[in-house]
């Protein structure tokens, strides 16, 4: 596929002083999003508030739906109608959306689900941060499926990574999660929006076959089928049932295996390409901190404090959390003695790290119940303890 440039009429090129929620909205618009549906929920609402204001200026449509069930499927309808679409929510709404995460995965509908995470469970801490939906993003809908999830740690990244989120959704025809947290969402910093010609977009995989040649779920390049344009005579069928290459329901074990192998494979086989990390001071690190989102910024401060005490700590930050950067973690485990996972929950990503490094390194969790970010000193205390034996 030939990448295309962003539409200059929609990109607010320049330096801005905005929060992560606003930056995420601009990222979506720059990525070509022309449809959003949402339901108000703290602390995410500013994203759709901004989109509601911007949509009629940039040829886009916003609709506030009656609930998150509706929002999360309206964006899928819009995607099949030809739009690039997304929805935005937080914990309780995220729970409601899980049904359509599954539908998007099963029907291979490109769409972006933004979750500005807050404390849970249930109504929890509406106005305060957490990172406790990371496993829900991975496993929240029923059945087997693979997802892609990105985790920005600054307003700038809320813009930059949102472009990637849309590109990945199109490239892999898969639901993509944008896993923010309340701190990143409401943190105001400088955000530099580049000119449109610096923003590359992956166009929708539309078929060039004629209707009589076209099979909606026949795998194309990289195992990913091409979509047909609605209303152009393809008369295609899309179903959440297990289906064959014609898109027709096929309720048997063989069809299930063929479809699932391909759906899982298109992400698993490309996990190395999709996975992305940012690393700090890892060259000689015997102690590897793993942190993502807002927590990665606090963890980096703790790493710097440890270095001042000559403790060889470094930071690995999964920018793409799902698929998890397994290869990189395994490489680091060859020489690191300990991994310290810092996350704003009672232990989610730590289990991923632990299973990867169990044979050669210890894994320690620095949890946080949410509601505030970790104090760097608290992380440093753990680093010091680990340094005694690592």
């Amino acid at each position, binding site marked *: 596929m030939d990448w295309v440039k962003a539409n200059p009429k929609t990109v607010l090129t320049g330096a801005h002083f905005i929060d992560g929620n606003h930056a995420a909205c601009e990222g979506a618009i720059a990525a070509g999003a022309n449809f959003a549906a949402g339901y108000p929920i703290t602390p995410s609402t500013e994203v759709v508030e901004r989109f509601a204001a911007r949509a009629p200026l940039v040829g886009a449509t916003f609709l506030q739906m009656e609930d998150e069930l509706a929002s999360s499927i309206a964006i899928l309808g819009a*995607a099949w109608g030809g739009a690039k679409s997304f929805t935005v929510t937080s914990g309780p709404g995220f729970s409601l959306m899980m049904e359509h995460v599954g*539908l998007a995965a099963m029907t291979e509908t490109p769409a972006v689900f933004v979750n500005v995470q807050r404390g849970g469970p249930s109504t929890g801490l509406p106005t305060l941060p957490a990172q406790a939906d990371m496993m829900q993003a991975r496993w929240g809908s029923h059945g087997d499926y693979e997802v892609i999830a990105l985790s920005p740690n600054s307003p700038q990244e809320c813009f930059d990574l949102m472009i990637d989120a849309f590109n990945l959704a199109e490239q892999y025809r898969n639901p993509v999660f944008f896993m923010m947290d309340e701190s990143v969402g409401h943190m105001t910093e400088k955000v530099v929006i580049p000119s449109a010609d610096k923003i590359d977009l992956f166009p929708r995989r539309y078929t060039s076959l004629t209707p009589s040649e076209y099979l909606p779920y026949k795998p194309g390049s990289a195992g990913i089928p091409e979509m047909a344009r609605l209303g152009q005579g393809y*008369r295609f069928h899309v*179903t959440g049932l297990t289906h064959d290459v014609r898109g027709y329901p096929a309720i048997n074990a063989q069809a299930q295996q063929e479809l699932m192998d391909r759906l899982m494979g298109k992400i698993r086989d490309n996990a190395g390409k999709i996975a992305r990390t940012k690393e700090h001071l890892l060259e000689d690190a015997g102690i590897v901190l793993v942190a993502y989102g807002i927590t990665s910024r606090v963890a980096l401060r703790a790493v710097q404090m440890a270095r001042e005490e000559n403790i060889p700590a470094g930071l690995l930050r999964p920018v793409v959390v799902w698929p998890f950067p397994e290869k990189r973690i395994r490489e680091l485990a060859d020489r690191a003695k300990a991994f310290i996972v810092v996350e704003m929950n009672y232990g989610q990503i730590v289990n991923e790290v632990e299973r990867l490094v169990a044979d050669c390194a210890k894994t320690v969790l620095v949890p946080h119940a949410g509601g505030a970010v970790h104090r760097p000193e608290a992380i440093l205390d753990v680093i010091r303890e680990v340094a005694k034996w690592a």
Partner: protein
Amino acid sequence: MGVTTAINPVEPLLRTDRMPHIWCPGCGIGTTVNCFARALGRSKLPLDKVAVVSGIGCTGRVAGYLQFDSFHTTHGRAIPFATGLKLANPEMSVVVYSGDGDLIAIGGNHFIHAARRNVDIKVICVNNFIYGMTGGQVAPTTPLGASATTAPYGAFEQPFNLPFLAESSGAVYVARWTVYHVQHIAHSMAEALRKKGFSFIEILAPCPTLYQRRNKLGDSLDAMRYYKERSVIKNGASTRDLDLGFQEEIIVGKFVDSERPTLQQTMDQRYREVLKDRYNGWRQP
């Protein structure tokens, strides 16, 4: 012995490679599909510009048998899917075709909001008074006293009066027929297809396997006899008066045919008024 080989006129609109369908002998859904195909022929709509969206359930399988761009979505959510589809691609005629449990129980919230917004979609609801696909459970349409697997001593909840619900939520076209009224159904469907705005057609249909048998109402022919003998056509009747009792009189007809700007029209108008030439309307993708 002659064998007729004439092609059924509705056949070009069906995915014949998916036949036989899953519906039971005597089921009313197929009859409504036949009416729909005839209505499309009458409507003169370009068939490539018709999309059919279904939810889950027996009627939820309709989308898969019709030879259009078609979507079989999640339980209860066909309407919000269709809303997104229509807004993203306004030139499409979008038809939601589903059952009473799907549209009115699990999807009830979406139903009233789409009617309120006057989204330009056509909603065809095949009402068989029961959950068919899952084996005959009570529905929000089951008449008082009728038996269902989860109401083994008879339904004791007041059922919805669907035309009243549709009208009071804002639908601009509301009709009810039974599958006995095939000409009326096709006529109503053709009217709804030409109409702008949220249009709703309820079609009462027999479920011989579950509803009829469980309630000792005979087979589908008995159901047709009931529809024929106890239906009264009252076009323009007040939707307030359309409650359905167990094997009681059925008022059918076209009850609402009014004009109101659609969601897209009100959206466009608002933006144009306020934003003037800054308004950048939806461009086709």
